[in-house]
C-alpha cells in the first residue's frame, strides 16, 4: 500500500493513490501549492525606478521575489499573497501596491 515513494501532490489524485497519512517525501513541494489567488491587493514592479538594492527580497514572507544574477525579477504571482510589505520596504517608489482587479473578476 505504501505509495509515499511516489508522493503525488496533484489536485486530481484519487483516494487510492494519495500519499498515506499525507506524508510528503519530496523537498520544495510548497512550490506546487499556488497561493496567488488569495490576493486582493497586488504589488506592481516598476523596473525603471528600481536601483536593485534588494531590500524588498528578504522581507517577502512568501519568497515571491525571484533573484537571478544579483538582480530581482518581476513578482512570482503564483505565490504572492499581496501583503504589501515589499512596497513599504522599497525606498525608491519602485513598487506600486494597488487593488488586484483581475482577481475580483
Amino acid at each position, binding site marked *: *500500500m*505504501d505509495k*509515499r*515513494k511516489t508522493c503525488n501532490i496533484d*489536485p486530481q*489524485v*484519487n*483516494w*487510492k493513490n*494519495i500519499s*498515506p*497519512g*499525507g*506524508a*510528503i*517525501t*519530496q*523537498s520544495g*513541494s510548497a512550490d506546487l*501549492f499556488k497561493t496567488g489567488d488569495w490576493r486582493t491587493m497586488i504589488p506592481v514592479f516598476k523596473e525603471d525606478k528600481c536601483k536593485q538594492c534588494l531590500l524588498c527580497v528578504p522581507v517577502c514572507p512568501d519568497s515571491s521575489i525571484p533573484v537571478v544574477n544579483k538582480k530581482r525579477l518581476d513578482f512570482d504571482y503564483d505565490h504572492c499573497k499581496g501583503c504589501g510589505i515589499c512596497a513599504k520596504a522599497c525606498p525608491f517608489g519602485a513598487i506600486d501596491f494597488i487593488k488586484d482587479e483581475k482577481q475580483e473578476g
Partner: protein
Amino acid sequence: MGIRDRLSGNEAIANAMKQINPDVMPAFPITPSTEIPQYFSQFVANGEVDTEFVTVESEHSAMSACIGSEAAGARTVTATSSAGLALMHEVLYVAASSRLPITLACVNRALTGPININADHGDSMGARDSGWIQIYSENNQEAYDNFIQAFRIGEHPDVQLPVMVCQDGFITSHGVENIELIETEKVKNFVGDYCPENYMLNPNETIAHGPYDSPVYYMEHKRQQLEAMKNAKEVILSVGKEFGEMSGRFYDFFEAYKLEDAEVAIVVLNSTAGTAKDVVDAMREEGKKVGLLKLRIFRPFPGEEIAQALKNVKAVAVMDRHEGFSTIGGPVFSEVRTVLYDLPNPPKTISYVYGLGGRDVRTIHIESIYNELLAVKDGKDQGEAYRYLGVRE
C-alpha cells in the same frame, strides 16, 4: 508450553511490553493504568529493556511524543485511562490520520463527571470515531494476548493504524489471576521488528509528516483511512489464527459462547462477559437455550459477522457500560441493532446500560436479562427497549 504465572491485568500488559521491548514509551500516570508505566519504568531502570522512557507533563504530551517517535521510525507504546484518554483526544486523531501504528493500553475507567475512578467504557467509547482500532479484553490473559497481537495488526502494511487494547479498570487491571505467558523469544519472533518503509530518521530520504490538508485532499485521505480500517478485518483474523497456532489460544472478532443453537443472546464486551458465561452455563443446565456474543473487536465493527452470528436468535440484549446520551440506547446497542436491520427476520433487541462508574454487575443481573429475553421470545410484549440495569428506581 507457556510460563504459568499470577499477574494483574496491568502487570500482564507491562510484561508483554517487556517481552516486546519497544523503542519508546512516553506515558503519564493515571488511575487505574498507573501501574503499567510504573512497572515498566522499573524494567527500564533495571536494564531489562532498552526502551527510551519519556516522562511527560500530560497525556496530550504523551500522545504527541508517541506521534513524533513513531513517525521517526520507532516502535512506540503508551498506556492511559479515562481523563488521560480524553486529554489525548485531539492527538488520537493525528496519530490515526498520519497512519502511525502506535499501541496503547487503555484501562477503562469512567469519565468525570461526577468524578469517579472505576470501571466504565466512557473513555474508549468517546474515542470510537478517532480512527484507532479497538480491541476489548475479558480478562488478564486476553489483555496480554491482545496486546501482543496489536503490533502485528497495526503495523501491517495494509493497515498502518494505531491500536488501543482495552480492559476493565480494577476488575481486571488490579485483579490477580492465573495467566500463561508466552516465552519471550516466541513473543519477539511473533511480533518481529518494526520496519516502516518511510520514517523521519532515514538519512537517505526527506519526509514531512502532518502537513495541512486543504479541501482538495482531505476527503481523499479520510476515504483512504477508511480503507485501512476495512483492511484491518482480514489482518485481525489472520493474526488471531497465527497467534492461536503459537499459543493454543485462537482469536476472532468475537467469541460466540454457546450461541450456535441459542434462542436468546447477550452482546457484551470486556470483563462482564466472564460473569455472563457463568450465567449461560447455569441456565443451560436448566435446559434454557441462552448464548453470549462477547465482542472483542469494536473498531473496525464486524457488522456482517455479528448479523450472521445472531440471525437465528429471537431476542438480543446489548449491554453498554457507557451512557452516550443519544436517548435511543448505548453505542454498542445502536451499532448491533443497525447490522441486524438487514436480516430477513431480525431478532427483538433491548439496550441495557449497566455498570456505570464501577457499579457491580452480578450473575443475578445477567440472569434477569436472560429471563426477560426468554419471556420476549415467548411472546411477551418487548416494552421499553432502552433500559438501565441495576439502577435504583
